[in-house]
């Protein structure tokens, strides 16, 4: 069936768990993580969304709950339409989502990247390793509590670290590109490093 506005309304009638997600561009739905796979499978089988274009996640903030949201973008090569499906993950400490690799092999690398950047574990993924950072890297860089300048790390290769005695130093900008703070006096609104928990002048807290 080729997705039209009508058929997407029928989708919402068919699955009572779908909630419309505010969106200005494409049809967009929120689903509980338990029904996520069911929804994606139905979109692939019955609604002709044959291409998984993107899987990503959003970190809603360190204190937010639910903290992580996974977002899927699907595309129909016949009907020329996108759809967005999002699911909030239940566990804030160790977020887990089901894998879509059985539906689209494309999900393989996208989910690996999601795991690499956010630490979201995709249950049932055949080969969930880091993809952009190196194996054994201890942090998840796109989480909101990861500073832009990074954490000091042991070098990737332990042998090199042993011989040279060096560690990877954070970038000298310590906070990085400039953004002016929003709510302050005009005089203090000079552009400055956004992450001000530590910079060249004040030491990084241990």
């Amino acid at each position, binding site marked *: 069936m080729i997705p039209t506005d009508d058929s997407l309304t029928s989708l919402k009638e068919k699955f009572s768990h779908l909630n419309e997600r505010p969106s200005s561009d494409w049809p967009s739905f929120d689903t509980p993580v338990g029904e996520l796979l069911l929804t994606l499978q139905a979109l692939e089988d019955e609604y002709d969304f044959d291409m998984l274009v993107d899987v990503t996640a959003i970190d809603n903030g360190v204190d937010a709950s639910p903290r992580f949201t996974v977002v899927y973008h699907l595309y129909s090569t016949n009907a020329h339409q996108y759809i967005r499906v999002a699911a909030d993950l239940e566990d804030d400490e160790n977020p887990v989502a089901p894998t879509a690799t059985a539906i689209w*092999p494309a999900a393989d690398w996208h989910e690996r990247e999601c795991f690499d950047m956010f630490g979201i574990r995709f249950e049932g993924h055949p080969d969930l390793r880091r993809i952009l950072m190196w194996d054994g890297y201890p942090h998840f860089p796109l989480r909101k509590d990861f500073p832009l300048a990074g954490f000091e790390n042991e070098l990737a290769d332990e042998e090199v670290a042993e011989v040279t005695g060096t560690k990877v130093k954070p970038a000298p900008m310590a906070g990085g590109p400039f953004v002016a703070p929003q709510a302050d006096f005009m005089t203090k609104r000079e552009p400055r490093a956004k992450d001000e928990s530590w910079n060249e002048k004040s030491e990084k807290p241990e």
Partner: protein
Amino acid sequence: MATETTEFSVPDSAAKAAAGSQEFETEKLELSMGPSHPSTHGVLRLNLELDGEIIKKCDPVLGYLHRGDEKIAENMTYNQFVPYTDRLDYLAPLANNVAYAIAVERLADIEIPERCQAIRVLISELARISAHLLGLGAFAMDVGAMTVFLYTFTEREKLYTLFEELTGARFTTSYTRIGGVARDMPEGWTGRVLQFIEEFLPVVDEVDGLLTRNRIWVDRTEDIGVISREDAIAYGLTGPNLRGSGVEMDLRKDLPYSGYEQYDFDIPVGTKGDCYDRYLVRIEEMRQSARIARQVIDKMPSGSFYAEDAKKIFLPPKEKVLTSMEELIQNFMLVTEGPQMPSGEVYFEAENPKGALGFYVVSKGGGVPYRLKIRAPSFCNLSILPKVCIGAMVADTASILGSLDFVMGECDR
């Protein structure tokens, strides 16, 4: 006279080897190809498991060029991120700028004037020609056809001169702004583009003549790295790689943006999905791009090169900043706080030379994106590598990698 027949017998040693082949212990050889290997076009590393010359397993290792662009985007204003998009697919920075700008414009709901749209189409198509010229030249050189590389790079050099005249930079152009482009085209520039197209089309024919019926080229590419139509869609391939497998998907036609619906052009598709088809698709796409570029120049509308209602985003002209109080304040606020965006989320994909480059922008208001996901076509195109390499010879990887035409800057972000 009886015909003399010679009986060929298998030499003893070979017969023994054939009969006793079970006794030889075969060992799988692990070969790490890259990250600094000429045919991996940048810093891709392939961990191959070989049985003789045959690839049994292929595990691509990415991330050598990972710079954390998505993290950087969360820490700077929308305007500040434009130069970073140059460094994604650094062979077509003009097209990346356009894709990013349109994504943010959809978030801010800005109408772009026709002239600006036409300029964007023109530079996107020139960028496509430039990227395909490089991809083709490098592909041919990897497979042993050195001449093609020299021909294509001569043309690319002319394009760089045109880009320099337009943007002030040859490589990382940062020409597009959110809400417009940085400046209008210089006088007589379109004429020089037309002249370039005039000189460039015969070169495409020449390259076509050098390769398309070349026995060695056909042997090295035909039936190598075959990707079926179903696989191509399932693995999320886009761009010429998807069209090479026979899927007629082109976002310029399917979901026209920036006024692509006004121009006539054809979408070349392959039949088999092998390296040869992907090559043919690229050759034809360059001709189609030239066709679009001619139409754009022919129809070039007059008007403004930036949107008037984008004043809250687009930096005011410098001479006004230096003479008028209003514009000075505007400039100051834009630079310090960034353009104030409504909250919401937007996903936009543009048909770039390598495939569909997508930007997923999540805004919670203010001048800084809350989350910016870059959907890199090279990343998705490479994800089929573990499948397509199995059963191929080691030497075929040069053909396969060359025909997939990826850029690691975009893949690793």
